[in-house]
C-alpha cells in the first residue's frame, strides 16, 4: 500500500510540474471573457450599442476594413441598428437615407458610356475602401485588412477575440520577439505581431447619446455592431427557435402520451 501511495504522490507531483509548462508553450493569450447583451437563447442586440458601434466602424474601422456583403439598407432592416417600425422598407428609412447620402459612390455607365458619381442610396453596398486587394495591401505595408462582413463568425470565439485584440496593445513584447517598424505587438494575435496600429483611444469619437467614449465602451460597441453585421437575422432566429421548441416539446408530450396509450395493453 505504501508503495502505491508513494507512486500516486509522485505521479501527481510530475503532473503538477508538467501541466504549467504545457500551458506556457502556448504562444498567445486566450481571449478574455466578456458579457454581451446578445448571449443566451433570449439575448438581443442593444440598439444603443449597435448605433454607437456603427459610428465606431464608420469613423474608425471603415478607413481600412470593408464590408463587402452588406448593403446600407441592412442598417434599417428589422433587427438592424436604425430599424424603424414605421418604415418596414429600409429604403424609405430617413436615417438610413441620410447615412447613405453622406457617401459618394460611382455609378454608370451613363448613356455616353461614362462612369459618374452620385450620392449614395440605401440600396448601395457599403463603400469599399480599396479598388482591389493589391491596393489594400500596398496601403497597409503588405498586410491586407480583412473584410468585416462575417468577421465575428470567421474567428474562433469571435466576439471575445476581436474585443481582446482591440484592447490588447498594452503588453511588453517578449525579449526574443523582434518588433519591426510597421508591426505592433499584441499577444492575442496568433504569432503576436500584427500590422494594425492600436486604434482605440479614450474620447476618440463623440457619441451623440452622451455615452462616455472610453476604449472599453468603443470596443464593446463595435464588436456588437460587427456581430450584427455577421448575423443580421440572429434575433429572428431566436424568436423562431422559441416557437419551434414550444411546438416540438408539446408534440413530443402528445406523442409520448399516445405511445403509452397504444402500448398499454401490450407487454414489451
Amino acid at each position: 500500500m505504501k508503495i502505491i501511495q508513494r507512486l500516486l504522490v509522485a505521479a501527481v507531483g510530475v503532473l503538477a510540474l508538467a501541466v504549467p509548462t504545457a500551458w506556457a508553450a502556448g504562444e498567445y493569450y486566450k481571449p478574455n471573457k466578456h458579457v454581451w447583451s446578445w448571449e443566451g437563447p433570449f439575448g438581443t442586440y442593444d440598439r444603443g450599442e449597435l448605433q454607437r458601434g456603427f459610428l465606431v466602424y464608420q469613423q474608425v474601422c471603415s478607413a481600412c476594413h470593408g464590408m463587402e456583403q452588406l448593403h446600407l439598407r441592412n442598417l434599417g432592416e428589422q433587427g438592424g441598428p436604425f430599424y424603424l417600425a414605421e418604415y418596414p422598407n429600409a429604403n424609405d428609412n430617413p436615417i438610413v437615407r441620410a447615412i447613405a447620402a453622406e457617401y459618394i459612390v460611382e455609378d454608370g455607365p451613363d448613356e455616353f458610356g461614362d462612369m459618374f458619381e452620385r450620392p449614395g442610396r440605401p440600396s448601395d453596398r457599403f463603400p469599399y475602401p480599396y479598388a482591389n486587394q493589391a491596393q489594400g495591401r500596398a496601403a497597409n505595408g503588405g498586410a491586407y485588412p480583412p473584410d468585416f462582413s462575417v468577421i465575428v463568425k470567421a474567428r474562433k470565439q469571435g466576439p471575445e477575440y476581436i474585443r481582446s485584440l482591440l484592447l490588447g496593445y498594452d503588453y511588453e513584447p517578449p525579449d526574443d520577439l523582434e518588433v519591426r517598424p510597421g508591426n505592433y505587438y499584441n499577444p492575442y494575435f496568433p504569432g503576436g505581431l500584427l500590422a494594425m496600429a492600436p486604434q482605440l483611444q479614450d474620447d476618440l469619437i463623440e457619441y451623440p447619446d452622451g455615452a462616455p467614449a472610453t476604449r472599453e465602451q468603443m470596443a464593446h460597441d463595435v464588436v456588437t455592431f460587427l456581430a450584427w453585421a455577421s448575423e443580421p437575422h440572429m434575433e429572428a432566429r431566436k424568436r423562431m427557435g422559441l416557437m419551434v421548441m414550444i411546438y416540438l416539446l408539446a408534440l413530443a408530450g402528445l406523442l409520448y402520451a399516445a405511445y403509452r396509450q397504444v402500448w398499454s395493453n401490450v407487454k414489451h
Partner: protein
Amino acid sequence: MSGPSTYEPKTGFTRWLDKRLPIARLGWDSFVDFPTPRNLNYWWTFGGILAVCLMIQILTGIVLAMHYVPHIDYSCASVERIDRDVNFGWLLRNSHANGASMFFLAVYLHMLRGLYYGSYKAPRELLWILGVVIYLLMMAAAFLGYVLPWGQMSFWGAMVITNLFGALPVVGTPVTEWLWGGFSVGNATLNRFFSLHYLIPFLIAGVVGLHIWALHVPGNNNPTGLTVKTGADTLPFHPYYTVKDGFAIVVFLIIFAFFVFYWPDALGHADNYVEADALVTPAHIVPEWYLLPFYAILRAVPDKLGGVILMFGAIGVLFILPWLDTSRVRSMRYRPMGRWFFLFFVIACLGLGWVGAELPDNKVPVLGVLGLDFLWMGRILTLYYFGYFLVVLPLLGLVEKPAERPASIERSVLGKDTFGAAAPVAALAE
C-alpha cells in the same frame, strides 16, 4: 412481406388498382401490418430518424441550390446572400449544414446498434452491406457539400482529400487531375463537386429503398438477437412502432432544432467563413467532426499510400464483417466477453475522433506525462479498431461461452410464468 399479405382492398378503386399496381398492398404490408418484434428498444428508432434526416437534407438542399452559385468568384457571396437576403435563407442553410451533422450522429448510433445486437449476421448480411454503401455515399455527399461554400476549410479539405488519390501508384496523378478537372483544385472542381453533390442524395435514396427491401424480407433483428418464431413474438408495425418512432423522431428534432436555432455554428469551423485562398494555408486543416476518426487513421501511418489504404480499409472491413464474426449468438447481451470488447471499440472510435481533431505532435492531456502524443494514441486506437474486426470477432466466437438465452422473444418479454397472457392477436384485432 414476410408472411402472406393481409391487405384487403375495400373500395372499388382500390380493388381496381390492386389488380394492376398493388402499391397500396405494398404500403400496407410494409408499414402497417408488417410484423415487428415486440421487444425493440429506442436504439431501433434511428432507422426512421435517418429517413427523416435524408428528406430534410434533400428538401432544404433543393431550395438552397436555387440560390447557390457554383463559381469560385461568387460561391462565398452567394452563400452569404442566402443567409442575409433570401427569405428564411438562414433557416435553410442552418438546417442543411447542421442536418449533415445530425444525419451522421443518427447513422453512427444506427450502426453501433447493429454492431452491438449483431444485426449484420445471417440472414441480414446484404441488409448490412447496403447500409455500408449508404454510409459511404453519405461521406462522399458530406465531403462534396462541405466544399461548396468555398471557404478556407472547403478549399483545403478538398485539396487534402483529392491529393490522397495521388498516392495511388502509376495512375495517381492522372486520376487526381481527372478529379480536379485541371491541375489544381479550381473552378472546374467546384462545378463537378456541385453536380455530384446534387446527384448522390438520390443515389442514397435508391439504396435506402433496397435497404428497406432487404430489411423487410428477414424482418427486424431485436435486442435478444433471437429469430422470430411465432406471431406472438411480433406486433404490427402500425400503430405500435409508428407511434414509438414518431415520438423518437420528435425528440431527435428537438436536438436538431437546438443546434439550428441556438448554436448554428457550433459544429462548423470558423475558418470556413474566410473565403478560399490558395496562397494561405490554415494553421490546422481538420475535416468535419464526423470524419475525424478516419482522418486520425489516415495520419496514423507514416506512409501516404499506406495511410490511404488503411483509411479506406477502415470502411472496407465493414463490408466483410458478417463473415468475420464467428459467434453463433447475435446479441452482445448474451456475450459476456464480447460486450467488453464492444465497449472498448466505442471508446476507440470516440478516441480516434479526438485524435483527428488534434495536432499529431501535441501531447495527450494527463497521459502526455508518459510521453504519449496524439500520433501514438492514434496508432494504438487504430490498431484496436482493426483488431476488433480482424482478430477479436473471429476468435472470440470460438472461445467465448455465451450466457443463457431465453427460449423466444415472447418468453424474454413476458417471463416464464405469464406465458401467453397478452397475446398480440388481441392487439391485431383492434
